């Protein structure tokens, strides 16, 4: 079944929910009816605005979510890179990241479909918190699966989900991180498929998820494209977004895909190295677009990090939201067709960009988003005269880990944190 996107033809999508050689629906048979029901509901409500779904979605994105988010000229970064740099401020969306665009869309869709329960996976906790917020807002019971290790690493987000009334189910399989949480959520969905909707967190999974999540996230580029033309009087020469699963990426790129003059850069996490350690089955990076190979993961054919047998390897990044071995099939296809350029920056560069944006623009970005900034900073000549960088989220969730990671490295510009010892020493006071 072939869909037209809401805003006109989509050149990257073929029949049957595939994008070139990628996509598809590799899910257990028990889920197929649910996946097909979702395809129908997506077409009906999201593409054709039946029952005014799209109107309600947009109203709630505005009133509850805080859209539109600003497009801001970054004054000092523009000076530094000697070109016009604009930031799309998804960090200002309710919950602190672009994730709500998708979570709100899906929870609302589940309501329109008459579902009575939401499940979701989460890694860093950003998608989980966004889903928990949307579920509380729309009065839907919600359970979020999260690896035990991530639970310990991301305490604040766990608190937030619990405060929003969601259950958080610890997943101890494997390394206790995102990949396992997705597996476990699929299992829950396969068990409770009749009344439950699975709110997947990125442009991954079986069709129609990649297309649907991209449609919900495309509000980013819809706004940014209009804003940049209004503020700068022109289209950008380039658009830069980080890529984990690729939802902020596709959301930021989508409306620019047809603008051939606009270069699109998907910035992956280079981690500490681009190699894969076959011995331990670990990739010290999450650069599936740059170094991954074709395979099937979590319901879709796509590029992924795997060993020579086809077992998926554990990815790594200092930024847990990018720490995923796969990537959305549409993005994989756009890379194959050379419409999107995959690039990557390593952990150190991302941390330096984090500090740069914090100190020079007064915006503490998510570590994920810092990757996009880091690429721009290191490669200004590739950006053209005017670039739009998506700041996909805010860095409040990353404070503790940035401090820790910063202490272990020699980084340009990192501020000292001896303040706590000084305060404890109790000197202070007086001039």
């Amino acid at each position, binding site marked *: 079944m072939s869909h037209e996107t809401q805003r006109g033809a989509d050149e990257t999508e073929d029949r*049957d929910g595939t994008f070139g050689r990628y996509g*598809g*629906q*590799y*899910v*257990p*048979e*028990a*889920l*197929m*009816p*649910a996946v097909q029901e979702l395809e129908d509901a997506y077409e009906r409500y999201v593409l054709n605005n039946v029952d005014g779904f799209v109107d309600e979605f947009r109203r709630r994105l505005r009133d509850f979510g805080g859209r539109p988010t600003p497009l801001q000229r970054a004054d000092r970064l523009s000076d530094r890179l000697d070109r016009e740099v604009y930031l799309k401020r998804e960090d200002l969306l309710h919950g602190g990241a672009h994730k709500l665009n998708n979570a709100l869309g899906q929870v609302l869709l589940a309501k329109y479909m008459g579902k009575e329960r939401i499940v979701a996976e989460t890694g860093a906790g950003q998608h989980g918190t966004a889903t928990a917020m949307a579920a509380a807002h729309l009065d839907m019971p919600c359970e979020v699966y999260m690896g035990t290790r991530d639970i310990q690493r991301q305490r604040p987000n766990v608190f937030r989900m619990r405060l929003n009334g969601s259950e958080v189910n610890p997943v101890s*399989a*494997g390394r206790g991180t995102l*990949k396992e949480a997705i*597996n476990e959520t*699929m*299992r829950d969905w*396969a*068990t*409770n*498929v*009749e009344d439950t909707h699975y709110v997947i967190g990125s442009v991954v999974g079986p069709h129609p998820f990649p297309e649907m999540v991209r449609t919900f996230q495309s509000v980013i580029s819809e706004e940014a494209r209009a804003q940049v033309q209004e503020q700068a009087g022109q289209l950008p020469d380039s658009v830069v977004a980080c890529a984990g699963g690729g939802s902020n990426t596709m959301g930021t790129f989508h409306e620019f895909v047809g603008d051939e003059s606009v270069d699109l850069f998907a910035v992956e996490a280079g981690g500490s190295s681009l190699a894969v350690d*076959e011995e331990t*089955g670990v990739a010290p990076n999450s650069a599936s677009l*740059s*170094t*991954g*190979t*074709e*395979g*099937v*993961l*979590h*319901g879709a054919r796509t*590029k992924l990090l*795997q060993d*020579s*047998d*086809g*077992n*998926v*390897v554990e990815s790594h990044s200092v930024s847990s939201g990018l720490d995923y071995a796969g990537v959305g099939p549409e993005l*994989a296809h756009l*890379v*194959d067709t050379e419409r999107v350029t995959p690039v990557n920056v390593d952990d150190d560069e991302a941390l330096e960009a984090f500090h740069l944006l914090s100190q020079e623009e007064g915006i503490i970005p998510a570590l994920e988003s810092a990757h996009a900034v880091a690429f721009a900073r290191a490669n200004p000549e590739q950006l053209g005269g005017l670039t739009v960088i998506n700041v996909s989220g805010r860095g409040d969730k990353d404070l503790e880990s940035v401090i820790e990671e910063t202490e272990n490295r020699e980084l340009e510009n990192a501020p000292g944190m001896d303040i706590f010892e000084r305060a404890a020493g109790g000197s202070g006071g007086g001039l």
Partner: protein
Amino acid sequence: MNLADAFDEPAFVPYLCVGDPSVERTREYVQALVRGGADVLELGLPFSEPIAEGPTIQGSVVRALEAGTTPEQYFEFVDSLDVDVPVVCMTYYNLLYQYGDSEAQRASDASGEAASDGPESFVERAAEVGISGFVIPDLPAEEAGPLRAACDDHGLDLVFIVAPTTEGDRLERMVELSSGYLYVQARLGVTGAKADVSDQTEASLAKVSQYDIPKAVGFGVSSGDQARHIVEAGADGVIVGSALVDVVAEHGDPDGDDVPERLEAKARELSEGVAAGAENMAKPEGQ
């Protein structure tokens, strides 16, 4: 051996994951299952993302991977297996998809394009080692074209899982695509031993009764009694995984533990349940 023939009499189909805790021990276990009455063997090839499995089989898969079990070891194991029952390979699609890509080839083509040529090489190798068919839980009918074709080319069966949610056109299509037997999923969810037989079982069997293909029921079967009930409800086979893996999970000293004995006893309980059901079916109430 023709897979469908194994279901002439109601069949007991045990599952184990190869390589848990080692390939060598799996060999002992499989022999014990055959002694206990196995008619068909479903042998799992471990994959890192076993999304259709419950905790028991997940655990087994993880142990097998930690022991370093690779597809090639699996094939060699099956090749060297000296048993008289057909072997079905149960695994996930990515392993089929990747097989045959040498690392060198992969490295020379880091972009991933054309790195994989589909399931062809995997099926060829499976045929070589005497595997009779496949169960691939993450491959629905919609995505099965290439594998179905490869199986046909090599004379292997491809078994589809009919879920409680499968109905109408999709059911038709799946039955059409399926060969060997139909895997009738007894309940929604994932694999795992349960204390009762789901009410769903009878309804699920009823909806496929009209089709001329053996039906084997799995997901949650754990006792001889359940096996008997399922056969009485019209099944041609009973598939048991988690209840056996539970026994394997308790393995201890490789030379001294009694896992093979206990597996054999459990298999006997289950195969006797199947046989008792078959006997009762021969009586008037039979369909």
